[in-house]
């Protein structure tokens, strides 16, 4: 089951790394990267709800200028529920203090955390986690 990936990170280099990591570790070609969260939001809104494919995994950098990861999640949670259900939010953490860490994991739609720089092992572990919890009933969420 191939997940689509969306990467949102203000660092071009980090987007590049995420893309390459995903493509080579899981041999997955479906990666779209955005360096501006605002553009990503536009894209997601345009795409609407996606029901015929497994959820797209969204790797979201938290500390970004102008529109931060926090701003993005807050805007994301305003989208219609069926659009939200098409995505799985993973927050990319790096040198974050406790306050920011607990703040980002406090959001309902942020399901997982992944540390930067992304390594092959961490990516595989994340996918294992995601696929394991995928079988659980959605009762009570969103």
């Amino acid at each position, binding site marked *: 089951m191939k997940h689509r990936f969306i990467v949102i990170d203000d660092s071009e*280099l980090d987007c590049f790394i995420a893309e*390459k*990591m995903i493509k080579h570790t899981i041999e997955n070609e479906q990666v779209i990267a955005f360096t501006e969260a605002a553009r990503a939001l536009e894209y997601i809104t345009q795409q609407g709800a996606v029901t015929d494919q497994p959820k797209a995994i969204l790797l979201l950098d938290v500390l970004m*200028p102008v529109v931060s990861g926090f701003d993005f999640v807050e805007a994301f949670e305003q989208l219609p529920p069926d659009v939200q259900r098409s995505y799985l939010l993973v927050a990319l953490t*790096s*040198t974050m203090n406790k306050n920011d860490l607990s703040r980002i994991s406090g959001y309902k739609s942020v399901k997982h955390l992944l540390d930067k720089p992304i390594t092959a092992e961490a990516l595989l572990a994340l996918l294992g986690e995601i696929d394991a919890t995928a079988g659980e009933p959605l009762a009570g969420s969103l």
Partner: protein
Amino acid sequence: MPGKIKILYIDDEPNNLTGFKASFRIDYQVFTALDTTEAEIILEKHPDIHVIFCDQRMPVKTGVEFFGEMRSRFPLPVRILLTAYTDIESVIDAINHGHIFRYVKKPWNDADIMSAIEEANKFYISNSLLTVKNEELKIAYNELDKFAYSVSHDIRGPLSGILGAINVAANLNSVTEMKEMLALMEKSVKKLDVFILSMHDYYTLQRGELQLTEIDMNYLVAGMQDMYKVYANAHQISFTAEVNQQEPFRCDAFILKLILNNLLSNAFKYQRKELDNKRVALRIEVSRGTATFWVADNGIGIPRHHTEEIFTLFFRATSQEAGSGFGLYNVKDALIKLNGDIKVDSVLGEGTTFTITIPNK
């Protein structure tokens, strides 16, 4: 300290009040009150009263009681008790509880009063300084916290990016991909370098003392043109400079260059890429004791609601280009050191002009 020290004297005997005022009104600004209610009204109106003399034996409450009660409402004025009686117990008690600074025996001699005032005033001043320093420390701590957090992110960010790139390198198949990645890594490293240099500027500004020399604006501008020539040509940005220096100008050359460099590098960086006639213009005018600098561009501009915030440390108004987050903060800091001023005029999507004024030293 400009002006005369303000002192307040409270006594239920009017003759004492008159006598006191007569003796001391030349050297000090004397306020008098017949009772504690009147005294509190005066203290409300004049919060900068430094010393309060109060008689101990008064009808409604004693001086010690008054001082004990008003202390929390008016913590700053230094409290001195005047007492003829050997009410020593309560006086000692009051001194020990910090309610009063000292006591002076009645009838007083002028020298005793004046030395008490001078001592009390010194105490007042050092306490005020302490309060000021405490406030400054609080601000400094806050800044340090913000700083430590941002610095670790802004330094670790590029570094962990490069680490990630090294991890990925093992998986890359083509030289083209490798070259693509190396170019991105180079950007990271440069960003880190700029950040560290800006941080260095930040510290230099904090610690350094002004070194004033005569500034030749034409020479300064020639240096700037030299510095940006290559970049300007490579990105098709026209760079014009105009100097009108009518009198000698003394300033700190390092700080001046820091200001201009930060503004110019921003002007060059935040351009509208697709524009045909990109330009950056520098104009300098020195006349009537002031130097005015205009740095103008026709680039991306700054959103109106951000024009104040851009001077905040680590604030970024755009994700278009990597800024260190220090630049404009350093500029503002530098201008404070030079007693100068800065104004921003910007229209989003059209361009920005910064106007700096610096008085001649």
